[in-house]
């Protein structure tokens, strides 16, 4: 078979397969990384909700992490470009707003990759009880071990970091700053 005679083709899901057989669309979309957290794929981040393949047409459904996410257009374009490059000609990238994105959708492999990149992954998203949204007047004391030295004695430097989803922390033991993805 052509495919088996071309080593690497199976390992690279974005490459068009010789002989006109298109690579699996979910595999192509699954390899597209997030522009802000490039160590994660959009699928691991939970932004890609669905990939449907109907012949030559692919419909991808995505959801924004935050309402103001300025990378949504870039994400749409990256997914579209990857599929076009893989040989698909009809690509439709749709947006859904409900249900709203939550950090619980970051996959286990995504969390491992965040940790490997020195970013503390989020814990479980807070579950809200019935009634009004509770007010928090003191900074949350979310525990987070230092990703560099492993020490548990760390503090929040700023609740808002380089992107809306990250906070800036510092380890009191090794004094190194690091980031943590906040639960939402």
């Amino acid at each position, binding site marked *: 078979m052509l495919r088996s005679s071309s080593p690497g083709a199976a390992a690279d899901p974005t490459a068009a397969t010789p002989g006109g057989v298109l690579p699996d669309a979910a595999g192509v979309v699954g390899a597209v990384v997030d522009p802000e957290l490039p160590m994660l794929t959009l699928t691991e981040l939970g932004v890609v909700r669905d990939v449907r393949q109907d012949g030559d047409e692919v419909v991808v459904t995505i959801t924004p992490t935050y309402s103001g996410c300025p990378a949504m257009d870039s994400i749409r374009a990256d997914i579209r470009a990857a599929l076009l490059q893989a040989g698909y000609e009809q690509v439709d990238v*749709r947006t859904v707003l409900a249900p709203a994105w939550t950090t619980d959708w970051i996959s286990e492999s995504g969390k491992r990759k965040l940790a490997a990149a020195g970013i503390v992954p989020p814990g479980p998203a807070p579950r809200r009880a019935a009634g009004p949204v509770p007010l928090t007047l003191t900074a949350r004391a979310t525990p987070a071990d230092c990703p560099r030295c492993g020490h548990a004695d760390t503090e929040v430097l700023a609740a808002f970091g380089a992107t809306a989803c990250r906070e800036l922390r510092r380890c009191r033991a090794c004094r190194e700053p690091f980031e943590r993805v906040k639960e939402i």
Partner: protein
Amino acid sequence: MAFDDAYRALTDHDDDARWAYGTGFADPFAGVPTELPAGVDPADLAAYCLMLGDDALIMSHRLQEWVTRAPELEDELALANIALDLLGQARLLLTRAGQAEGSGRDEDTMAFRREAAEFRHVCLAERADADFAHLVARLLVLSTWRLAAFDRLTASRDPMLAAVAAKGIKEITYHRDYAAQWVVRLGDGTELSHARMAAAAEAIAAPAGELFRPHEVEIRLAAAGVAVDPSTLRAEFDAVLGQVLTAATLDPHIFDTEMYAPADCGAAATMPPGPGAPGGRPPSGRDGEHTAALHDILTEMQSLARAVPGGAW
């Protein structure tokens, strides 16, 4: 995807939405179904989306003004993040307003081509901040009201409003926490910070009353299961503000006022009259009645778009 060659990466693909900033800032609802709920006046839905969208757009602009002027760099990041969230909410709501009115006006047309009298935010959103205490007081009031409203809007019969609300709640929760923590820090701080925090709260107490005075559009849409009657938010608002003001060692009853007059917004007399309100009720920001502060905002926000129609970069 390979980006070994930066020039190739820039020019490789025939799509103008390649970058998040610059050309082709696409429709935020790309691919989202846009049907309107049955039995609802599209003009009312459009007006209501503008109310919620303009509150966010104008407050976002005021927040952005503080970037490079905040007490600490960390707070500039916080304010920029909050402004970005509100801008995102505004984009969705202004787009929805355009869909509802069926005019073909998109979010950019709504933001950059409307005149002052067509904006429907409350005057508290456009008010200039005398100092940082004014900013956090306004943010506390606006986000407390918005959180209570969005919480109820998750049950809206308009699926788009419900989705925007469900998403927005997560964001407004930390907007309100951020503002509340600053009000406590300043109120329960030094003699000087306490006095300035108290002055800020007192200055915006009367304008804040506008948020709770129902507009005809809100009443009609609330009856149709689409909107929320803002007068029903008062109890939750008072409870939250009482909690914050008490912790801040401020008078917990500062905002216990039902009084509101357009003059409370400041320089209303210097503005050309807006379209007015039906039924003899005094006009408000929800009717397009605004202060000179909005002119300052629009002059800055719209100047480029008006000078270079259709411009992109």
